[in-house]
């Protein structure tokens, strides 16, 4: 009981000492909170989007085969199917029709696609929630698209995908194969790419290699590669994220440098007085440790909670200008909060511990000198 009371007395004194330098310490807590908030927001956002991608895309096509012409993707002839289907381990193969449509009316890009099992009747479309909101068209309305021969094509909207599925469907238009071919004047006998199903998923790489041997002008993309693409998205090495990380590291270097470069004359005098009235060196170090902990822990807890509210309640509103970029049509990032204790612990050790430790070293140096000389200085 006595030990706890002693710690509380030191904490009382520490808080009074911090409040004496209210302006400086408040500014420190605000900046510290902002840095934690920024790092935590980036961590929560990127982790949640990666996790969601891994769950949603685990049923993506097992192998996609593209044809390359002079280094660029080109339409692939349907007769390539005959050359690939005989490869041992391939259970099914079919052509995929998809492409992009630039809507000059609102300046947005759409993804147009023909569903593989012909679920849509001719003259009808199913559209994403993003298109519906941007074009102000709803179920039962007509959607006008301009065909590549200049003709205006009218399609009845049969269904609008839910706003919850926007992360995969915001810009999607599904239509019948004939409509698709008419709209783009798409050549008969060719498709955008091929999708394969394999009997044994462990053979995907071997089959991809065989496809490359048989058809050297093609590029197979296996599902693991699609998943790895989204596993490395928003990696810390990517552009703006490295800038944010750099800013955060710089802030912590400034904090640590401020502490490690020594204490102010006022703080040294305070330590001198404390030692003169009987405080032990260990008490002074303990007081400085509490000081570091009060500042860093307060900022850390507040920063984490604010970051959570930012990412999962406001759909990362502060990141929106960056995420939108030049996109006219974009999904609202309503992410599922995939957060865990590991992320919080990582942030804790990255932000709280270095600061708490950095406050002890100069305090120890000041606490071991003669109180008389400190007070006279």
């Amino acid at each position, binding site marked *: 009981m006595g030990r706890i009371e002693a710690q509380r007395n030191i904490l009382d004194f520490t808080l009074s000492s911090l409040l004496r330098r209210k302006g400086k310490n408040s500014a420190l807590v605000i900046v510290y909170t902002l840095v934690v908030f920024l790092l935590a927001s980036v961590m929560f956002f990127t982790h949640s989007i990666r996790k969601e991608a891994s769950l949603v895309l685990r049923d993506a096509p097992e192998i996609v085969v593209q044809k*390359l012409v002079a280094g*660029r993707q080109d339409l692939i002839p349907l007769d390539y199917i005959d050359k690939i289907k005989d490869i041992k381990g391939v259970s099914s193969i079919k052509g995929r029709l998809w492409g992009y449509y630039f809507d000059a009316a609102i300046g947005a890009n759409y993804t147009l696609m023909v569903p593989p099992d012909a679920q849509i009747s001719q003259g009808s479309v199913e559209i994403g929630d*993003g298109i519906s909101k941007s074009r102000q068209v709803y179920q039962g309305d007509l959607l006008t698209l301009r065909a590549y021969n200049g003709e205006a094509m009218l399609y009845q909207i049969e269904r609008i995908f*839910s706003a919850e599925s926007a992360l*995969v469907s915001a810009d999607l238009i599904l239509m019948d194969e004939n409509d698709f071919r008419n709209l783009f004047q798409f050549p008969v006998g060719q498709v955008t790419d091929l999708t394969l199903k394999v009997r044994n998923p462990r053979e995907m790489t071997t089959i991809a290699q065989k496809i490359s041997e048989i058809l050297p002008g093609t590029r197979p993309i296996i599902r693991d590669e699609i998943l790895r693409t989204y596993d490395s998205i*928003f990696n810390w090495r990517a552009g703006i994220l490295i800038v944010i990380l750099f800013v955060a590291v710089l802030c912590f270097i400034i904090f640590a440098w401020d502490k490690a470069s020594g204490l102010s004359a006022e703080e040294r005098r305070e330590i001198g007085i404390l030692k003169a009235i009987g405080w032990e060196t260990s008490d002074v170090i303990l007081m400085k440790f509490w000081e570091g902990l009060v500042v860093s822990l307060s900022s850390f807890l507040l920063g984490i909670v604010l970051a959570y509210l930012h990412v999962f309640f406001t759909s990362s509103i502060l990141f929106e200008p960056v995420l939108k970029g030049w996109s006219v049509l974009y999904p609202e990032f309503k992410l599922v909060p995939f957060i865990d204790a590991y992320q919080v612990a990582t942030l804790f050790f990255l932000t709280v511990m270095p600061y708490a430790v950095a406050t002890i070293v100069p305090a120890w140096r000041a606490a071991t000198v003669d109180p008389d000389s400190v007070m006279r200085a």
Partner: protein
Amino acid sequence: MRKSSIYLLYVAANVIILCLVFIHAAYMRGAATDMLTEKSEMVKRFELTDLCLFTDARYARHLSMADMNSAFQDMPMAFEHFPSGSIMLPPPHIKRAHGTY
């Protein structure tokens, strides 16, 4: 009230809020199961390959389907024409021999 009591109450309140954050996250994950299944079903049914994160450029919209000649052709950290290109990395398989086997 002692200053230490006020501070400890503040820390306790924050820790409780942090616990509530974890409870809320767990609840939301449970509630999102249907929504995730719906998205996963759409990916399977329509044979989708990418998330609709950016729609400003084709290589940003279908990142895993991009070729080296459209984006990132100078170097992965090169200044990009589209802002989205500055917050994501080129797909790992593109960097490996331009995605060929």
